[in-house]
């Protein structure tokens, strides 16, 4: 087995120039374009963007569970604790899935196997990653996890269709956290739930994350969820990170026109304005993205510089990065 090159000076999770493409119906869909992200251990990064921005694809690339028909990682590296996951063999990668890195999915209704008992689906991940193969032990651990996520242990033998949406999502969380992963990928975990149930599930995730000091990549399109759970925020548009910073920086003074537009479009809870400020124009078509900045067609501040060639990420010292070449104009225009 080749010696694994591990460079230890890297952050816990570091993604470099990730590029993912889908082949659908003869066209190439550029789902993720040169995405670079970092995440420290125990911290939570909020990945915010609209439908089709490539959020889920990034998460699935980390776990390497992209559907193999028609999709492939064009280039880029994903380092977890200094080890490039993309170079690992399938067997090594399998040891990591569900054990060091696990995932929670969006739609609880279809995330569980309808013909297997709920408890067995939890015990399965425990048995895959534990050295002992005594079933009773795995079952005990699964029942423990059920109690932790707030489901009575005797529901071990029930089937998914006997659970409500909120309860099913708790089972998915139990599966994801059964082996105390270091990194949790949560793909819009509460979007499909009602507000009061969402509050319960969000609190559960935050509580367990703090208890086990798990790093988390939270994917969502709801800025309120980001404000409540995340430490740092990355805004993604048409498969490219357009703004990155701490929660304070992004919420207090957003600098990219798209991020500003997002905040303008959300009806604010406590003020009362007559008209919302929508972002006009259409969402981007990933099969033919414009040459320059992909937000140019919808941007009020766009000049022909924005159309010509791709905009590089301009980094500032305090870590608040923004992929826009007219930041001063935007700042002026804004005040």
């Amino acid at each position: 087995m080749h010696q694994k090159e591990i460079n230890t000076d890297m952050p816990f999770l570091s993604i470099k120039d990730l590029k993912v493409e889908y082949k659908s119906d003869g066209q190439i869909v550029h789902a993720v374009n040169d995405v670079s992200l970092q995440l420290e251990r125990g911290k939570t990064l909020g990945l915010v963007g609209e439908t089709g921005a490539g959020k889920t694809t990034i998460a699935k690339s980390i776990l390497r569970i992209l559907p193999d028909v028609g999709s492939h990682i064009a280039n880029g590296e994903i380092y977890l604790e200094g080890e490039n996951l993309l170079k690992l063999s399938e067997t090594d990668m399998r040891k990591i899935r569900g054990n060091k890195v696990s995932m929670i999915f969006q739609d609880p209704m279809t995330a569980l196997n309808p013909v297997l008992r709920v408890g067995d689906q939890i015990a399965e991940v425990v048995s895959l990653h534990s050295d002992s193969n005594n079933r009773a032990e795995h079952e005990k651990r699964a029942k423990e996890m059920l109690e932790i996520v707030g489901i009575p242990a005797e529901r071990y033998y029930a089937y998914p269709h006997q659970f409500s949406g909120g309860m099913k999502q708790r089972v998915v969380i139990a599966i994801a956290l059964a082996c105390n992963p270091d990194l949790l990928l949560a793909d819009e975990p509460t979007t499909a739930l009602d507000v009061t149930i969402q509050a319960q599930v969000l609190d559960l995730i935050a509580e367990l994350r703090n208890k086990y000091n798990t790093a988390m990549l939270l994917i969502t399109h709801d800025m309120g969820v980001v404000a409540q759970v995340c430490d740092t925020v990355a805004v993604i548009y048409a498969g490219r990170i357009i703004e990155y910073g701490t929660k304070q920086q992004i919420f207090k003074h957003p600098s990219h026109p798209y991020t500003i537009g997002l905040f303008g479009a959300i009806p604010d809870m406590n003020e009362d304005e007559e008209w919302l400020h929508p972002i006009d124009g259409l969402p981007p078509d990933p099969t033919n993205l414009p040459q320059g900045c992909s937000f140019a067609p919808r941007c009020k501040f766009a000049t022909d510089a924005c159309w010509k060639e791709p905009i590089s990420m301009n980094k500032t010292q305090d870590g608040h990065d923004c992929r826009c070449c007219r930041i001063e104009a935007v700042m002026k225009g804004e005040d």
Partner: protein
Amino acid sequence: MNPVIEVKNLKKYFTTPRGMLHAVDDVTFTIEKGRTLGVVGESGCGKSTLGRTIIHLHESTEGQILLNGKDVTNLKGKDLRQAREKMQIIFQDPYSSLDPRKTIDSTIREPLIVSRRFTKSQIDQKTQELMDLVGIDERLRKAYPHELDGGRRQRVGIARALALEPEFVVCDEPVSALDVSIQAQVLNLLKKLQKEKGLTYMFVTHDMSVVRHISDDICVMYLGQVVEKCSSKELFKTPLHPYTRALLSAIPSTDIDKPNKREILRGEITSPVNPKPGCRFAARCPYAKEECLKQQKQEEISPGHFVTCCRLQEISSSYN
């Protein structure tokens, strides 16, 4: 002047193999011309059924519906058709509310054709007007729904609803399936149309920030019952019913400085089939007592602010 829509003790029960499902249970409200009543609640609270029952997509089990003071509850045949032209609906799912086999043009013109009151040229002219009104450009006339994004499909749905010049429009979660940036465009369009055409809306949604922005009055529903009804400003300033307070506190706010204190509800929504009498929120309510199981009645605590909770006096002292 009569309110555009008046609903008195409206009930809608569905017979299911497991028993009688109380979807809408004794709902009463009025909506004045040009105003918007927001109906908010979680899934399964009967808000969509309420909207569909008012415009006769479902037949009401009990109670009265008045359109401009005229009773439209048990209309049949010709009268029903006329009343229906005045009451229209906009649907939630842009992908399933448009017939995939029909072009945008034929979808918008269909209500005009079916009403048999317009000549061919009138229909062409009105269809063109409607498309401009909702902001769909000319080249999409012959397009099919799958060629459009969610936002523009909703615009086609709105154009179809406005074809017969209705006075009252039920908006059944029209923006829930849309992205935030597109959502704002459609909300602004709905407000513009209300101002221009003097439309009266009943806006059904589960998203509290949307309902606050668009509605004048708000009605909070839980398992088929109206638990609280008042102006939108007052509901967000001084919510009284325990469920409304829990609902408001559960919303993750984007204001990061003010960590909102949480009133997390226990347990899950109970089943609406063969419900026991009394307050249906009792099972999850932190303040529930014996008398909550008896039949509740709606009281007007302050002008225009109705609440259905028998223990309100004792509870409200512990709020501040």
